[in-house]
């Protein structure tokens, strides 16, 4: 360490820093078991911060991508908003969207297109001998493509004519195509939805996964092409594209008004439906990750406090054991602050070593998670730095009392100490 003389004279401790760090490492080496048990808490705490922040950050990044891929400016009309707490009683009162209401929304000035989607329960989809059982079937309209920015990669989408005539045609997601048509062109082939014959007219572009669920395992058919015997089991939702992303919030209000009028809700009665945007999903997600962060901070705090108290203990022992050394140092000209910094540096070396270990282990865990689990993990440099700074701060805080004790020692008594 090269320092100019004035700085060096004012802060001789900077020159002896390396010595103190070395002494801390020597203490770890000399008392391997005691030191490693002591810093274990710090290791755990820092490991938690590094590992969990990496995993959460990875989730955040993939979540942001996925939410964006849903279409940035789409309004969702559902029986309830995500994260909304609804009693069973209330659930029963909620009505699903009717075609009448969809009609009313579609003519609103701020609405560009509305895509009603009726969930149709189909248990078995067959092409020849090939079967698919877990695909989701939606009855929808031509507006689906516009609203969701989802297009066919092959063939054509459902047209208004198909909807008017309730034609038995189907557009398949790529998962369904892969399952039913190995190496066969699916266009114009006939599939059977619970025994009803449908002609394949198109294949959707691959959309990938959302929340670890495939969005390509779907079948889209024209509204009305499968008639429900019991209308009570109709379950319709709708997605809306406003005329521009800028009017998103006003569009929400317009749609709410339209539905409330149709449903003749009284002035103060609450909505018995929900209209919300992607932001609601993002907010919900933030709340969840916020919770994860809280858990992370709680776990690591416990570890750090336990580790910190351990460090305080080992430092107190060290100060007592080295009373004589402190006396010698003072006799040779060490000032109070030199002794203080020596022991603080030593404590910080202990916790810093624990911190580094924690960062390596946590980083390793994150890497393993990223590699071998469906959760993506990205190691966050900022969090790693925060973690390391925290480890040092723990050393500083819990080392303060032992170091002050050392600094306060009377040189005469310290020299006489046996």
């Amino acid at each position, binding site marked *: *360490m*090269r*320092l100019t*003389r*004035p700085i*060096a*004279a*004012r*802060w*001789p401790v900077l*020159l*002896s820093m390396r*010595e103190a760090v070395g*002494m801390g490492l*020597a203490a770890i080496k000399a008392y391997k078991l005691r030191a490693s048990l002591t810093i274990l808490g710090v290791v755990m705490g820092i490991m938690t911060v590094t590992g969990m922040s990496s995993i959460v950050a990875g989730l955040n990044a993939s979540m942001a991508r996925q939410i964006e891929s849903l279409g940035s400016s789409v309004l969702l009309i559902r029986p309830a908003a995500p994260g909304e707490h609804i009693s069973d009683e209330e659930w029963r009162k909620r009505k699903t969207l009717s075609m009448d209401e969809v009609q009313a929304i579609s003519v609103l000035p701020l609405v560009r297109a509305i895509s009603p989607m009726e969930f149709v329960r189909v248990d078995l989809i067959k092409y020849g001998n090939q079967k698919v059982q877990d695909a989701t079937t939606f009855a929808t309209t031509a507006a689906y493509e516009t609203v969701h920015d989802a297009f066919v990669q092959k063939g054509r989408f459902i047209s208004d004519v198909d909807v008017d005539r309730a034609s038995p045609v189907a557009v398949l997601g790529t998962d369904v195509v892969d399952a039913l048509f190995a190496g066969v062109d699916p266009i114009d082939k006939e599939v059977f939805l619970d025994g009803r014959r449908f002609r394949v007219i198109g294949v959707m572009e691959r959309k990938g996964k959302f929340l670890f669920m495939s969005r390509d395992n779907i079948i889209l058919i024209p509204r009305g092409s499968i008639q429900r015997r019991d209308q009570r089991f109709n379950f319709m939702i709708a997605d809306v594209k406003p005329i521009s992303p800028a009017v998103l919030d006003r569009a929400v209000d317009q749609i709410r008004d339209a539905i409330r009028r149709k449903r003749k809700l009284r002035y103060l009665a609450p909505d018995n439906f929900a209209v919300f945007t992607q932001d609601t999903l993002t907010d919900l997600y933030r709340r969840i990750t916020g919770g994860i962060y809280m858990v992370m901070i709680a776990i690591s705090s416990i570890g750090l406090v336990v580790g910190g108290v351990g460090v305080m203990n080992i430092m107190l022992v060290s100060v007592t054991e080295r009373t*004589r*050394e402190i*006396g*010698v*140092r*003072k*006799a*040779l*000209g*060490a*000032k*109070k*602050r*030199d002794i203080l910094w020596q022991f603080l540096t030593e404590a910080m070396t202990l916790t810093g070593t624990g911190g580094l270990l924690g960062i390596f282990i946590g980083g390793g865990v994150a890497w393993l998670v990223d590699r071998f689990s469906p959760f993506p993990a990205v190691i966050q440099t900022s969090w790693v730095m925060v973690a390391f700074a925290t480890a040092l701060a723990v050393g500083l805080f819990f080392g303060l009392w032992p170091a002050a004790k050392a600094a306060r020692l009377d*040189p*005469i008594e310290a*020299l006489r100490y046996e």
Partner: protein
Amino acid sequence: MSADAVPPSAPAVPPSAPPAAAAEADGSLIRAEDLWRTYVMGAEEIHALRGVSFTIAPNEYVAVMGPSGSGKSTLMNLIGCLDTPSRGRYVLRGKVVSEMNDNELAAIRNREIGFVFQTFNLLPRATALHNVELPLVYAGIPKDERMERARRALAMVDLADRMTHKPNELSGGQRQRVAVARALVMGPAILLADEPTGNLDTVTGEEIMRLFEKLHAEGNTIILVTHEKDVADHAQRTIHIRDGKIESDEKRR
């Protein structure tokens, strides 16, 4: 943090050079005037020193003798700037030590006092070189210069070939020589030795005393605290302490 007693720009004294001439008008290096040291034990006051006065000139070789409980150790602590008197005035190289605070005392110990202890008091995990370097660290001297001066100090006590050895790899005599090198490295006003041969056999003890004589001949001022007559006889002057007072102050040669 308060300012250092000596400004950082003060030129360092090379270890081999004899101490600079005294600043006191009468040419004394140390001037003690009516030193009292009183300890309060509960309601009782114990006077460890009861008015001690003396002066020591540059390049004197003085032994301080006295039985245990005589106040000899208390006097040594005052001379060594580890403590300040309850009453009286202590001037070292023109600086009034008796009025200094802790930080100033630390700085003066660093620059003006070279301690040699009975039990050597070397840092066990550090090499000889590193032990000698320590006072230079606290003086804020850069690494290269520290190494250079520590090497020279070790060469002066004939330990140039033992620099990288740790205390437990050295003999008792060698350890005490490392301690002497450490005491001299800052070029102090006085070398203050407390029973320097107390933990050594007779032969090795003689070897250390010869080293002290050599250092004295080179111009160092030495104060030797001991209760052994043989050891005190090496000095030119002996101050006897009893019951907190100077009993006698004899010069020889």
